[in-house]
C-alpha cells in the first residue's frame, strides 16, 4: 500500500490556504470537513446557499433548530455577525464574484479546469443543487479529492468523460497525493508526498504534470 493522505488530511491542507476573513463556500459532504481545520488565529466566514453567512458547527443532538440548516440539510449554529438572506441574494454572492473561495468535491477534473462532480451518467434520479452555480464566481474554485477512484483510475484527466458541472472553472486541486494548480490549460505540480516519486505520481495522473518551479513536500499532521 503506497502512502496517501486521509480525507481529513486533504481537508487540513486545503484549509491552510484560506485567509483570515475570507468568504468561503464548502460543498456538501467531504468539503464541509475543511471548516474544522482553520489555522489558529484565522476565521473564515462560511456561506451556505440556503441563506446564511457566518454559520458555525452543528448544535448538540436535541438542540437542533430545523429552520437553521446548511445546504446539506444539517442543523447548524450561528456565530456573532451572522446574516440571513433569500436565495436570489445568496446566488448573487456566488455568481457576482463576492466569495473568495469555493471548495468542492470531484468525480473528475480536467487539465483545462473543467469539473465533473454532479452526475455519474443517465441512470437514476439526476440532482444538481448549487454545484453548477458555485463553480462560477468565486475568486478561487478549489477541488479536494482522492487522486484516483476507488478502482484506481485517474481522476485528473486531459478531458472529463462524465457530465460536466462547469467549463474551465477549477484553479487548484488538493488530492491524496499532491497539490496541483491549473494554469493555462495545464496541471502544474506544486507539492507532492515526499515518499512518492514524480514518475509514480505521473503514472496515477491521466494528463501530463508540468513543473514551473521547485516542488515542495506535501506535509500534513497526523489527524
Amino acid at each position, binding site marked *: 500500500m503506497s502512502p496517501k493522505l486521509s480525507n481529513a488530511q486533504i481537508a487540513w491542507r486545503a484549509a491552510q490556504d484560506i485567509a483570515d476573513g475570507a468568504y468561503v463556500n464548502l460543498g456538501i459532504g467531504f468539503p464541509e470537513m475543511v471548516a474544522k481545520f482553520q489555522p489558529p488565529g484565522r476565521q473564515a466566514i462560511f456561506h451556505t446557499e440556503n441563506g446564511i453567512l457566518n454559520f458555525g458547527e452543528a448544535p448538540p443532538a436535541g438542540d*437542533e433548530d430545523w429552520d437553521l440548516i446548511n445546504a446539506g440539510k444539517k442543523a447548524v449554529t450561528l456565530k456573532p455577525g451572522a446574516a440571513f438572506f433569500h436565495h436570489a441574494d445568496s446566488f448573487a454572492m456566488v455568481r457576482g464574484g463576492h466569495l473568495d473561495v469555493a471548495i468542492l468535491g470531484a468525480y473528475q477534473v480536467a487539465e483545462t479546469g473543467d469539473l465533473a462532480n454532479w452526475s455519474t451518467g443517465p441512470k437514476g434520479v439526476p440532482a444538481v443543487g448549487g454545484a453548477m452555480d458555485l463553480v462560477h464566481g468565486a475568486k478561487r474554485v478549489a477541488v479536494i479529492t482522492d487522486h484516483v477512484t476507488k478502482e484506481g483510475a485517474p481522476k485528473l484527466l486531459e478531458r472529463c468523460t462524465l457530465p*460536466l458541472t462547469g467549463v474551465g472553472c477549477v484553479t487548484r486541486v488538493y488530492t491524496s497525493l499532491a497539490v496541483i494548480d491549473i494554469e493555462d490549460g495545464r496541471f502544474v505540480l506544486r507539492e507532492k508526498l515526499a515518499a512518492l516519486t514524480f514518475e509514480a505520481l505521473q503514472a496515477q495522473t491521466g494528463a501530463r504534470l508540468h513543473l514551473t518551479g521547485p516542488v515542495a513536500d506535501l506535509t500534513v499532521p497526523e489527524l
Partner: protein
Amino acid sequence: MDKTIATLAEAVSTVADGATVMIGGFGGSGAPIELIHALIDRYRATGHPTGLTVVNNNAGNGHVGLAALIEAGMVRKLICSFPRSADPVVFTERYLAGKIELELVPQGTLAERIRAGGAGIPAFYTPTGYGTELAKGKRIEEFDGRPYVQERWLKADVALVKAECADTMGNLTYRAASRNFGPLMCMAAAETIVQARKIVDPGAIDPETVVTPGIFVQKVVAVPDPQQEETLNRAGAVH
C-alpha cells in the same frame, strides 16, 4: 384591507387543476407543511386540484409535505434543483416509473428565474450551466469575452409560503434561514398564500424589518404552532 383568511381549507380552495404552484422551503426549512396538507385534504375530499406543476428546491422527504403531495398523485411535473433527500422514495419511484416529469434547474438559476418572473424580466444571462447538458438548446451569448446561457423567467399561478409573522396587509417576516425561496416566490405568483405563526395589526411590524412587502401577498392564514418536516419524519409521520 384585511388579507386574513380564517381557515387553511379556505386559503387553498382556489388552487385549480393544472396550476403551477411554487412551494417555499429548502428541505424542511420554510416548508409550509400545513398549507400543503390542506391542499391534499381538499384533493382527498373533492378530487381537486390535480395535474399540478410544482416548483420547489427539492422533491420532498419521507411521507409528509411535498412528498405527500406527490404520493397523493396530485403532481404532474416538478421543477427543482435537487430531487434527493434522506428519504426520497416517493419521488424516486414515480420518476423511475415515468409517472412524473422532472425539469432539473441549477439552484441559483432556479432562484433567479423565479425572481425574474416576479420582477417582469422575461430572460437573463448567467454563466451557470455553460458547456453542460443543462444548457442544451439554450441561447448562448458572449459578454466581455465570456459565454453566458440565456434563461427564462418562471411564474406561477399560486405560491404557498411559510412566514414567521404577517400583518393583515400581508407584510411578512421570516424565521432564521427559512425564508430561502419565500420572498422570491411571493413575487412570482399571481396568488400568494402565506401561513404565518402570528398575524398582527398593521403597524405592529416595524417597516424597517419587513422582508416581503404586502403587495406580493394575497392571503394570510394563521398557523400558530407549525410543524417541521424533519421532526415529522423522525417520528415516522405519514400524511
